[in-house]
């Protein structure tokens, strides 16, 4: 009796192995797909990591100086890189509006006549700044940086008027704020962007590859062969998921060890095995999503569009691009069932923050539960369709 069970399990595992190898062979023999995957995990990550920034730097600033005094020049001089880039001076305000219209200027700073005089006499004065509001966040940042610069300039001028120099600043009741940034002290985008691209690449492939593998069988009719073979729906699905998980984990290693660690020098603080384990779990969860999509589509054209319909919102609304706190409540709730949301917490937690299981167990548990539900749903749909 027990012998019978063992041999049945062995046969089950053998079928799984044979079919997994078949999937891997099929993947390797599509050269375009293979090249694409290598590009996604190496070249694409390098390109994005080295050239894309989500921070406002070198905001193009043009100035209009109606005062032409030492004070106005001193104030201009403080608008410096990295935040601002002084692109030039204009004679007439109209010229500035044209530059803003053409998108060649981000901000225009105007100093009124009599600026220095007012400052010396201790009278309140104001400078004007026109900011291109078509970029809402960079616009706000430019104004906030400018506010800080003007505020400091004003405070120093005021203290000088009161006979208090910078050296005696200890003896006035100001509040000094010492800011320290953790996990990425210099706020390098080259630590953030490559990982973000890696997570996005994993997301695209882990949904699309298993889905396409299944729909391809449907479109070519080879699914009939699988259906008449002594295989359960789970045995048809699992090899596809296993093969694609293996492929993606190889891709992850490729990008970690050829780009992210050696080129960008991202300091990995946590445990890499834990990262791989969580990634495998995440790929499994997404594969369930892909298989579910595969049950809805009849051909590859459809699955391409359908997976896009699933992938694009998952990535764009994951919190990598925009803060989840700022989303409307119904959408924020929606992101909680997205596996990527939990995976991001775990991945950045392990890689950059050095968090371990003791802190991340809740994210990983949520990922496991969401993944299990999606996967079970996918298998259920497939079983109904094939049965």
């Amino acid at each position, binding site marked *: 009796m027990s012998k019978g069970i063992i041999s049945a399990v062995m046969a089950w595992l053998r079928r799984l192995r044979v079919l997994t190898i078949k999937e891997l062979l099929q993947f390797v023999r599509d050269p375009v*797909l293979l090249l694409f995957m290598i590009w996604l995990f190496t070249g694409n990550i390098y390109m994005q990591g080295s050239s894309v920034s989500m921070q406002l730097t070198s905001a193009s600033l043009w100035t209009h100086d109606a005062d032409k005094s030492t004070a106005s020049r001193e104030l201009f001089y403080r608008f410096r890189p990295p935040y601002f880039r002084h692109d030039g001076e204009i004679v007439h305000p109209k010229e500035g509006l044209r530059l803003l219209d053409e998108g060649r200027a981000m901000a225009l700073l105007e100093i009124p006549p009599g600026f220095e005089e007012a400052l010396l006499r201790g009278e309140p004065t*104001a400078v004007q700044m026109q900011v291109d*509001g078509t970029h809402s966040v960079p616009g706000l940042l430019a104004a906030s940086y400018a506010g800080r610069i003007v505020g400091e300039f004003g405070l120093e001028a005021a203290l000088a008027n009161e006979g208090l120099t910078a050296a005696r600043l200890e003896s006035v009741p100001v509040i000094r704020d010492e800011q320290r940034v953790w996990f990425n002290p210099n706020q390098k985008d080259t630590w953030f962007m490559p990982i973000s691209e890696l997570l996005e690449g994993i997301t695209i492939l882990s949904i699309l590859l298993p889905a396409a593998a299944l729909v391809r069988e449907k479109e070519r009719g080879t699914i009939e062969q699988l259906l008449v073979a002594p295989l359960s729906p789970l045995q048809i699905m699992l090899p596809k998921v296993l093969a694609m998980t293996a492929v993606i984990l190889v891709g992850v290693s490729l990008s970690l060890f050829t780009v992210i660690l050696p080129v960008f020098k991202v300091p990995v603080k946590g445990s890499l095995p834990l990262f791989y384990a969580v990634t495998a779990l995440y790929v499994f969860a997404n594969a369930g999503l892909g298989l579910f999509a595969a049950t809805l589509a009849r051909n590859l054209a459809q699955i391409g569009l359908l997976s896009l319909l699933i992938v694009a919102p998952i990535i764009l609304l994951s919190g990598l691009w925009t803060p989840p706190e700022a989303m409307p409540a119904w959408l924020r709730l929606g992101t909680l069932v997205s596996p990527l949301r939990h995976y991001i917490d775990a991945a950045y937690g392990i890689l950059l923050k050095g968090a371990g299981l003791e*802190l991340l167990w809740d994210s990983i548990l949520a990922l496991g539960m969401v993944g299990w539900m999606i996967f079970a749903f996918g298998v259920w749909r497939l079983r109904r369709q094939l049965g």
Partner: protein
Amino acid sequence: MNLRRVHAVAHKEWREVLRDRLFFTLAFVLPAVFMLLFGYGLSLDVENVPFAIVDHDRSAASRDYAYRFIGSRYFDFQGYVPDERALDPLLKDNRIRVAIVIPARFEENLLAGRAAQVQTLIDGTLPARAATTKGYVGAINAAASREQLAEYLARQRGLSPKSARDRVEPVRLEVRYLYNQSLSSLHSLAPKLIMLILMFVPPLLTAVGVVREKESGSIYNIYASTVSRGEFLTGKLVPYVGISVVNVLVLSLIATQVFGAPFKGSLPFFFAASVLFVACTTAIGLLVSLLVRTQLAATLVTVILTLVPALDYSGFFMPIPSLSPEGQIEAHLFPAMYYTNIVVGSFLKGVGLQTLWVELVVLFGYTVALFSVGYFLFSKRPRA
């Protein structure tokens, strides 16, 4: 070029799109759904940043200082924490993204007329959000500091509170946001979303539509027919350009009617430029379809080739000058940036042909070049 044969190819393609119900729905529903979902979901404002406070001073002054953050809509107070050691797991576990540490003798220092220090710890995992958060903290701190100084001056020199405040802030910065006075994230985003969606949906539909014929083998009918290369390509693309033009209208209506974004420019100019742009992106799809053999590869290659420049090299999130020098070169190589200037100019800035003619010329050149390359790559006698 025989127009009847072009019409026949276009008609056949249109039928195919029409009869594949899922494909047809997605061609029209996908853009609108994306527009609505991203319009509401991609709020760029950094708000409700979760934070905690360590107050070693426990004085009236330290509580006052803390309340400046607790009461701000930019921050979301998670509670007082006994000491710095308790902050580490909170930051690592994403429960807070900022912590403010007020040291002992904070009030004593201020009352004695000495400088006081506070410390801010910021989670730098997402550098852009850290930068914005730093800005908020800096602004709140500067206001608190100025008030302390004004009170001190008022006491020391016997000034009225108002003139003391004027003394410590002699220069005010008056900011005016052009084109988008309220700095609405939605109004800024809506036109760029049109660009994003038109950048990747038309080429995807086209690439998949053309490769389908290659993969199923029905392209041999074309190889054997009297239809010339130019006729086949034109006929094949016309339905997809048509679908995309409808989408231009739908997306513009969502932007203005649902999101309430203004349209300040010239309608004919915007429409003409948009038709040119979808012709251009459709041609990208054509080019991809000629280079790959399977529909899966067509999907993947198109998505990467179009979505990456549309998100990262177009000015979608950041103005182009903020990119690195290489990034700026890449931005000029893709059509996304030029069309971004056109949509933003038409919706928010109210500028037209006079300012944006360069963009239009570049898009035109791009389209012609892509079609020519496609024409030469497509052969009715493929090797192998």
